[in-house]
């Protein structure tokens, strides 16, 4: 028997745990802490989604259903605990969300996983619509428009932990996030996890080696829903309110974006996506009202230029890293970064100019932009913006060949060394 956890794995997960523990010490502002909490929840949700999309090849447009139902069940559980009708440690309440997710995953999955591909995607969308509209109909359980409010600090304080303070909630989320990450990673290296890949790649062959492909999909979907439910439970604890939006189509779409931006072909991809999307959504919205536009464009750029997501972009550099040749790319990347910065500077300025030109303020439409003041009512600002943007675009166009050449030379070198 090989040990369940090799020394390398213990070191690795230990490092992740340490990083989780150290985060609030580095980013101690309250807004950073709530963003970190949000990230932990998003990581669980995105990873659970990738059990479907990346590992089993099931494109679901309704994964938030299981996240949201988990959240609602946990909110009710917290309220029952608060009313003294039921005893359960708050630390383990996310497990109730997990079980709720699992039960509904088994139930809905039984229907949806009979088909793969486009029919599966469409049925998942239908179920998402159905559950979202039920949420507004059955107000006793879902709380209607207002949702279900709850209080997380209902348990007896244990060693001073009552989950009143956000820092305690962060550590609760971090702990669950670590456990879920480990469990989902371990799952990829089990017979079911491997057969999920087989069913994704070639369902017909999977049948002829003895596997019921529907059963494999169903089990993967149920387990994915379990983890999504845990994420939902943590969301209920974190926000202390759960509304119909939690299980709505926008939330379901969001997790698709996270997975694709991060990269569905690698286990770690969705983690990158979850962190980045959370960051963009909460940070960007502080700076500009046009943030949704930037977010959409960012998604577009990733899908067009790196369909494998950011994880794939990173993986592309691995052979060079292993051969210690990564620095060969550094000069060309530095030039590209400067060119890119100029282009983006011009591009963002243009968008903001248009946005403020359209804005309602009558007195002055001038606004500050990276320390400058831009006034969309004066032609010279438009001209300057256009010049910066065009310069940046020209530079980027020229830089492409520089980066391309650096890559060519590197590839030749790697081939010479026999790395690729």
């Amino acid at each position: 028997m090989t040990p369940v956890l090799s020394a390398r794995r213990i070191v690795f997960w230990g490092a992740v745990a340490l990083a989780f523990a150290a985060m609030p010490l580095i980013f101690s502002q309250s807004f950073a802490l709530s963003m970190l909490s949000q990230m932990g929840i998003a990581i669980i949700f995105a990873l659970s989604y990738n059990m479907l999309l990346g590992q089993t090849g099931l494109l679901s447009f309704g994964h938030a259903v299981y996240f949201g139902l988990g959240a609602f069940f946990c909110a009710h559980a917290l309220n029952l605990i608060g009313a003294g009708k039921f005893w359960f440690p708050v630390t383990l309440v996310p497990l109730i969300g997990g079980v709720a997710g699992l039960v509904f995953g088994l139930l809905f999955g039984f229907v949806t996983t009979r088909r793969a591909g486009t029919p599966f995607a469409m049925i998942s969308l239908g179920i998402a619509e159905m559950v979202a509209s039920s949420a507004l109909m059955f107000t006793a359980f879902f709380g209607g428009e207002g949702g279900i409010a709850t209080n997380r600090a209902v348990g007896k304080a244990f060693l001073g932990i009552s989950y009143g303070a956000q820092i305690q909630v962060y550590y609760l989320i971090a702990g669950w996030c670590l456990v879920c990450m480990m469990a989902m990673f371990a799952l990829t290296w089990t017979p079911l996890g491997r057969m999920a890949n087989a069913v994704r790649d070639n369902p017909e062959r999977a049948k002829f080696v003895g596997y019921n492909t529907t059963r494999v999909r169903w089990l993967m979907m149920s387990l994915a829903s379990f983890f999504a439910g845990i994420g939902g439970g943590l969301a209920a604890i974190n926000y202390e309110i759960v509304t119909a939006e939690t299980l709505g189509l926008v939330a379901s779409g969001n997790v698709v974006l996270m997975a694709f931006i991060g990269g569905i072909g690698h286990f770690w991809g969705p983690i990158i996506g979850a962190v980045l999307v959370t960051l963009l959504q909460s940070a960007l919205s502080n700076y500009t009202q046009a943030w949704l536009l930037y977010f959409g464009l960012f998604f577009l750029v990733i899908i067009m230029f790196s369909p494998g997501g950011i994880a794939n972009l990173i993986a592309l550099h691995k052979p060079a890293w292993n051969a210690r040749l990564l620095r060969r790319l550094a000069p060309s990347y530095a030039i590209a970064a400067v060119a890119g910065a100029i282009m983006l500077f011009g591009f963002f300025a243009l968008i903001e100019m248009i946005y403020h030109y359209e804005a309602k303020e009558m007195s002055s439409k001038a606004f500050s932009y990276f320390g400058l003041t831009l006034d969309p009512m004066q032609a010279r600002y438009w001209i300057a913006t256009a010049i910066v943007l065009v310069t940046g675009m020209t530079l980027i166009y020229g830089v492409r060949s520089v980066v391309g050449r650096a890559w060519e030379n590197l590839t030749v070198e790697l081939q010479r060394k026999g790395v690729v």
Partner: protein
Amino acid sequence: MAAPALELHDVRKSFGRTAIINGVNLSIRPGERHAIIGPNGAGKSTLFNLISGRFGVTSGRIDLHGESINGLEPEIINRMGLARSFQITNIFARMSVYENVRCAVLWSQGYKYSFWHRIDALEGVRERTGEIVDRIGMAKRRDRMAGVLTYAEQRALEIGVTIAGGANVILLDEPTAGMSRSETDEAVELIRKVTEGRTLIMVEHDMSVVFNLADRISVLVYGEVIASGTPQEIRGNKAVQEAYLGTEQH
């Protein structure tokens, strides 16, 4: 006398109004190497698809070891001990050679849908997979991605995936199609080796392979078996010569 490994009783298959298989009767003894030959469009591949559960029969009965397998799903038939290969290579292209074989080993080792066993820690699976990889001569290629193997290697892997689950009735659909002479000779040796002690039924176009490997041959023309017998008998059969061998001599 033991039950035949595989028996077909008046099996018919129509797609719409087009009858492809017109009442096939076949009885294959355990341990026999049986070749099915016939001109293009005779229904050989359809017959394999019926036996392996890919399609359902329109009428008739198919028995595996004396038990009816009519209407069963392919995975159920596979678990009952029948495995097949495909005419067009059908493997897990994005997985390594080793992983391909392991997928085919898992069920027979009893791990089914387990998500509580760590796959690398399963000694039995590892042993059995390594053994199959060795037996198909792919030990040096075991970590190669299946999609980048040469055609002949992919065909060998296809056979490996087919036999890995330990099925005792093996269906091979044109295992040497598209191979060079020397590749074909190697494939024949491989098939002989890996089907030792099992029942083999194969569709094959290459007559040298057929006469080299088969104990018995059935000739399928327009969805009917027009002759069944030893290679000698088939060679001497007038109807067969007219319908098939005469026109398509290799």
